[in-house]
């Protein structure tokens, strides 16, 4: 079995309101030295396949569902 970590993040230049709002909430809880907060989405997918195939499949998942290429980029890491 392989475990793939699929990381979906916003492309540079796309505003990140979730990060911005999260930062505000953290500051309200008293964290005053924050320089930046970015929101990143992570999926952990377990596959019964060998690594090369698994990577290909995960990239296909990104293209078909997990990422919208207009605003998001993705990275697949296998463990």
């Amino acid at each position: 079995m392989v475990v793939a970590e699929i990381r979906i993040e916003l492309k540079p230049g796309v505003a990140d309101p979730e990060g911005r709002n999260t930062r505000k909430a953290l500051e309200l809880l008293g964290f005053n030295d924050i320089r930046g907060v970015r929101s990143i989405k992570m999926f952990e997918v377990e596959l019964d396949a060998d690594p090369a195939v698994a990577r290909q499949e995960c990239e296909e998942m990104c293209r078909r569902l997990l990422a919208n290429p207009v605003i998001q980029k993705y990275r697949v890491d296998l463990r």
Partner: protein
Amino acid sequence: MKAVRVCVLRIEGTNCEDEAAQAFASVGASPEKVHLKQLLGQCPSDRRRELDSYDVLMLPGGFSAGDYVRAGAIFAARLKSGLRKELVAFVEAGRPVIGVCNGFQVLVELGLLPAMDGTMAEAPEAALYTNDSGRFECRPTLLRQERRGKGPFTAGIPHGSVVMCPSAHAEGKLMFPRGTRRRTLERLLENDQIVFRYVNPDGEYAGYPWCPNGSIYNIAGICNPAGNVLGMMPHPERVLRRETHPDWTRTPGREEGDGLPLFRSIVESVR
């Protein structure tokens, strides 16, 4: 008179299907609320439905599948994997498809909009992204009808006229790929694909709050080049009567809701 059959398609999390069906019923059509599983055959046989047997397809608003992953993405993926051929055939036959709010997001994720290079794009060519305010915005919005050509949606809404349809969404900012933004917009204009743009009460293309999301070129709704697939963020099905306009107690002249002509146009176009 021919009965106009409308498929109001839903999955878990769709939540504007009642008023969407009501909208079509109030202009004389026969709407049916259909669960995606009924089209896919994942149901008892007496509940099975065929997309082909409908004249109009409506994707109503809501939070399909919780809007997990991305607004509309899961609904789109399920449609694409199980119903691709039928959908493409439906669109290519020229039958009207309308997606409102979450339905618009689904059409974009599906590649049925803006679809400048074929009926259905492989990957999304646009995104409906988080509003500039970072918040869910539920407020009245004014839309100017911008399309010059004919088509099933705008026969009853003259070019240049302004209608009020409320918006209620957190992700309605239309975006195009960074490098090709200008070119995409130009092509949309060339193809006469822009149907609605946000304006203020003076008819100007104004910023927030009149454009609630920061959408490019104040775009509220677009259609495909053929003009039979429409996606829009604001909700015409919420203004079927004058009493759901936000200022109806001070505007005695209006007789019906601004959303009604859109549904009437659709139904008359297929009758």
